[in-house]
């Protein structure tokens, strides 16, 4: 995955080492490995050119039974039964449907309840399991590492490579341990943990590494929270994040549609229990955080490391000594329409987006509803909730979460990537300020000229009912 490094052939191994070693088909003399891929998730945006490549070279999909396809990135989140209005989006989805039919790849159709964001449905369906290697042409594939798997994003050429060979040519990544000790204070969530980590190590802090998240605060997270943390590994530059599987993982897997059952599950668990790092395993880099010191976090700038506690103020670029960094910070302040020293809680918002592969699970819907219940979305604010999958939507509706949100003035929409990246009609207009539970606050990410503040689902709901960025701890 990155530059080669000498690896001990014996001795204590990390979680990454064990999963890696179990998938090496062959190691070439220069250290490059032919790495076997257990699960390949395919979506409409990064696959058309890969299937075309197969056709041009007369190749087949080697393991359709290890592949699952779904459309998520540019499908509309309303009126779906009437078809996709935007022509280029419709062509992309139709192309996927033609390709999966031609190559025999399993597919969850748009109107089926199994449809959803690829990184939500993998774990939800029991397709993503501990100890697996999982890839997808999407950088947030790191999400599945929460299962104790090695999961990472690839480009379209590698999508074609996996379709054709079920392998990738890779060099081992370095091991990085991020240990979060202590207990998370009230009002703080997995999202705040991972934003704080990115704030600490920076957007390139994990480049060339796979991050293993460990420690008491990580262990205490439910699977949804662990997925949120691993999801944003890529925002720290790490291609993958992993969390050692434990009883919480096995309980989550049990009963999932595509997970092993009965005696087969027992055998799987017996192997999964051997995966956590050995005592004395060595990491190339270690970072330690104390969860007890965290506060609800919010990004102020245009990359995820530009993050502060909600109680803070907009930083002053003039305080930065390095000239290039100072210029970058000044550009962020300007793009985001901020004034140095302004309180984050004074920032008025126009839009709230709750959803995405980062925070589109049932637990996230519940967290938003808990704040929304009995309150109203502030005048002038558009607040949308987009469940991560049809299954999440059904579950939320069974729990009455949709009613709570709709009564509070939120839009309750159909599942997909939606305003996380604005490939469908859900976009910010220039200058609009959005509290978003997604993963990237890059310039123009949610629509040209849009201004994104990344927050947890509870913080997003608090912003919706307040009309400005708000400290969720004041809603207790």
């Amino acid at each position, binding site marked *: 995955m990155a*530059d080669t490094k000498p690896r001990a052939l014996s001795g204590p191994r990390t979680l990454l080492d064990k999963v890696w070693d179990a998938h090496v*088909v*062959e190691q*070439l003399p*220069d250290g490059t490995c*032919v790495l*076997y891929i*257990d699960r390949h998730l395919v979506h409409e945006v*990064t696959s*058309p050119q890969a299937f*075309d490549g197969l056709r041009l*070279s007369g190749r087949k999909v080697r393991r359709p*039974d290890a*592949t699952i396809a779904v459309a998520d*990135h*540019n499908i509309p989140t309303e009126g779906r039964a009437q078809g996709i209005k935007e022509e280029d*989006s419709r*062509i*992309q989805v139709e192309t996927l449907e033609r390709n999966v039919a031609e190559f025999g790849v*399993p597919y*969850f159709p748009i109107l089926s309840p199994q449809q959803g964001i690829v990184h939500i449905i993998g774990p939800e369906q029991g397709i993503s*399991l501990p100890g*697996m290697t999982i890839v997808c*042409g*999407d*950088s947030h*594939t790191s999400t599945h590492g929460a299962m104790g798997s090695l999961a*990472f*994003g690839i*480009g*379209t*050429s*590698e999508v*074609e490579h996996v379709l*054709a*060979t079920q392998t990738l*040519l890779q*060099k081992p990544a370095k091991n990085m341990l991020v240990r979060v000790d202590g207990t998370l204070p009230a009002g703080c969530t997995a999202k705040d943990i991972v934003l704080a980590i990115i704030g600490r190590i920076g957007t*390139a802090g994990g*480049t060339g590494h796979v991050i293993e998240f460990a420690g008491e605060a990580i262990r205490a997270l439910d699977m949804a929270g662990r997925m949120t943390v691993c999801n944003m590994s*890529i925002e720290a*530059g790490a*291609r993958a994040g992993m969390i050692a599987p434990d009883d919480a993982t096995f309980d989550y897997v049990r009963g999932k549609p*595509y997970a*092993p059952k009965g005696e*087969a599950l027992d055998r*799987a668990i017996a192997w999964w229990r051997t995966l956590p790092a050995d005592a004395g395993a060595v990491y190339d880099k270690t970072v330690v955080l104390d969860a007890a010191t965290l506060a609800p976090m919010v990004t102020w700038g245009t*990359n995820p490391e530009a993050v502060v506690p909600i109680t803070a103020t907009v930083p002053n670029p003039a305080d930065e000594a390095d000239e*290039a*960094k100072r210029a*970058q910070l000044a550009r962020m302040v300007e793009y985001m329409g901020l004034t140095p020293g302004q309180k984050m809680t004074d920032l008025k918002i126009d839009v709230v987006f709750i959803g995405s592969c980062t925070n589109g699970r049932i637990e996230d819907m519940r967290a938003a509803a808990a704040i929304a219940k009995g309150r109203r979305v502030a005048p002038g604010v558009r607040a949308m909730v987009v469940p991560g999958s049809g299954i999440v939507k059904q579950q939320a509706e069974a729990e009455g979460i949709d009613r709570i949100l709709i009564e509070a003035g939120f839009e309750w929409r159909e599942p997909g990537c939606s305003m996380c*990246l*604005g490939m469908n009609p859900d976009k910010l207009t220039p200058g609009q300020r959005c509290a978003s539970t997604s993963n*990237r606050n*890059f*310039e*123009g*990410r949610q629509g*040209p*000229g849009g201004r994104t503040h990344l927050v947890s689902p509870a913080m997003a709901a608090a912003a919706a009912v307040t009309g400005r960025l708000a400290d969720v701890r004041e809603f207790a």
Partner: protein
Amino acid sequence: MDKFTTLTGVAAPLPMANVDTDKIIPARFLKTIKRTGLGVHLFDTLRFDADGNERPDFVLNQGPYRRAEILIAHENFGCGSSREHAPWALLDFGIRCVIAPDFADIFHTNTFKNGILPIRLPREICDQLMEDAKQGDNARLTIDLAEQVVVRPNGEKIRFEIDPFRKHLLLNGLDDIGQTLQHAPSIDSYEAKQQAEKSWMPGITV
């Protein structure tokens, strides 16, 4: 994939860190089923205003840099989304080499798959090359992959490191699926072993 051997051309200075792939090509241009034709959207938001007019202060809108074949940038180039549309857009514009202090992992891999050479050089050397690049047409850089050097306009040679396997693929324009398929017997035996040892792992059918 086209071979990469030597390249002499105009280098465009882009003194920005954390150039993410959304900047290189925004998501709204990913709704294509082709690899080609994305050059017109390269750096769309930086290059064009809301009405589609060129922003004269952006480097690729200026004289010789419209024909740039080399791009020089700062740290963490290509971070964010895995979209291979980013190298496709660079290539379609005409850029065959990006020089930066470091690259994000997925982008770094994606460039090689498309015959683009990413060169890692220390920040201070990137800054020197950027000064060269500011002379536009009068200061072409030469990249020699076989020798692993960047040749400055003054003749000075700067050595860079590259993974030998990736260098081999680039120099010969080799398709790496073809390389991997040479190992098909190993893949067959791995699958047989996996079926025996991990028989708990179900296949996916719908």
